[in-house]
């Protein structure tokens, strides 16, 4: 299967994933953002733009946000296609659909869930602008350490296979290593330095975090299954055309 076709699948599935995410953003996340903006306004102080009124109007922020969600889907789709091509032989599953779903699950866990557990998503009116750089570094560090755990699991698998350890035992070892690694990352990386302001209700925070995870889960789900279905269709078509060489 030529890589360029796989890349096209990544762009198409990524666009679908981005549009799906934008839809969830619009329907589930935006209403909660509006609740948070009411709190921010009630404080009366200058909002995000330092005192001179908003730099970008609310309407443009909504359109910009939806567009960004869609663009992020396409970008993730491109990276997904490259990683899938390179790691296809390592991914579990006996079909390309299964392998793509597995890769999407790894992506969701390492790039979304792990940093999301360490530094949970927050609506407006929560983050301290003074700590945004520190929080960004912690967020990226969590993702990098998560990728390191994935690398360790793959390395351990290769080492155990080399030593002739049977598949079920390897699966147990890899599972223990992956969970242990994730727990270690969550324990070692420092949490957010911010404290939640008193005027932000806990329910608002919870609703926002659930909606944010729902949006990201939708993105990974559509990407994994969409990409998998497209790649699977190619493999099948190829198999019919040339049964001997897949």
């Amino acid at each position, binding site marked *: 299967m030529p*890589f360029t076709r796989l890349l096209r699948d990544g762009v198409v599935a990524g666009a679908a994933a981005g549009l799906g995410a934008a839809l969830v953003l619009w329907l589930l996340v935006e209403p909660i953002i509006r609740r948070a903006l009411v709190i921010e306004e009630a404080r009366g102080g200058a909002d995000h733009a330092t005192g001179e009124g908003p730099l970008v109007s609310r309407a443009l922020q909504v359109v*910009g*946000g939806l567009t960004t*969600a869609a663009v992020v889907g396409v*970008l993730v789709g491109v*990276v997904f296609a490259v990683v899938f091509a390179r790691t296809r032989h390592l991914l579990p599953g*006996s079909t390309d659909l299964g392998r793509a779903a597995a890769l999407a699950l790894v992506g969701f866990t390492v790039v979304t869930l792990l940093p999301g557990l360490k530094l949970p998503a927050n609506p407006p009116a929560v983050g301290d602008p003074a700590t945004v*750089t520190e929080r960004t570094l912690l967020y990226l560090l969590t993702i990098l350490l998560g990728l390191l755990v994935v690398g360790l699991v793959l390395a351990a698998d290769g080492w155990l296979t080399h030593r002739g350890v049977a598949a079920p035992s390897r699966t147990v070892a890899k599972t223990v290593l992956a969970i242990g690694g994730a727990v270690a990352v969550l324990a070692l990386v420092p949490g957010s330095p911010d404290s939640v302001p008193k005027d932000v209700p806990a329910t608002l925070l919870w609703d926002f975090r659930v909606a*944010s995870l729902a949006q990201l889960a939708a993105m990974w789900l559509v990407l994994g299954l969409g990409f998998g279905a497209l790649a699977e269709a190619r493999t099948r078509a190829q198999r019919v055309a040339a049964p001997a060489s897949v």
Partner: protein
Amino acid sequence: MAMTDVPPAGAATATAIDVPRWAWALAALGVLSLYVVSQENGALLSAGAAEYLHELTHDARHALGAPCH
């Protein structure tokens, strides 16, 4: 790995697909773009440009769980 499975044709011979060099550059560009769109707050762009970008992508940044203010 799946020795006992009876995989459909092609599954047993699943191999990595050759990734051309330009595709790695494209993936790197993709990761960089993801950073700029979702995380950049002045490390790469000028303060003014970064702030405008932050405000424009604001809602998606919050929704994606990216650190924001």
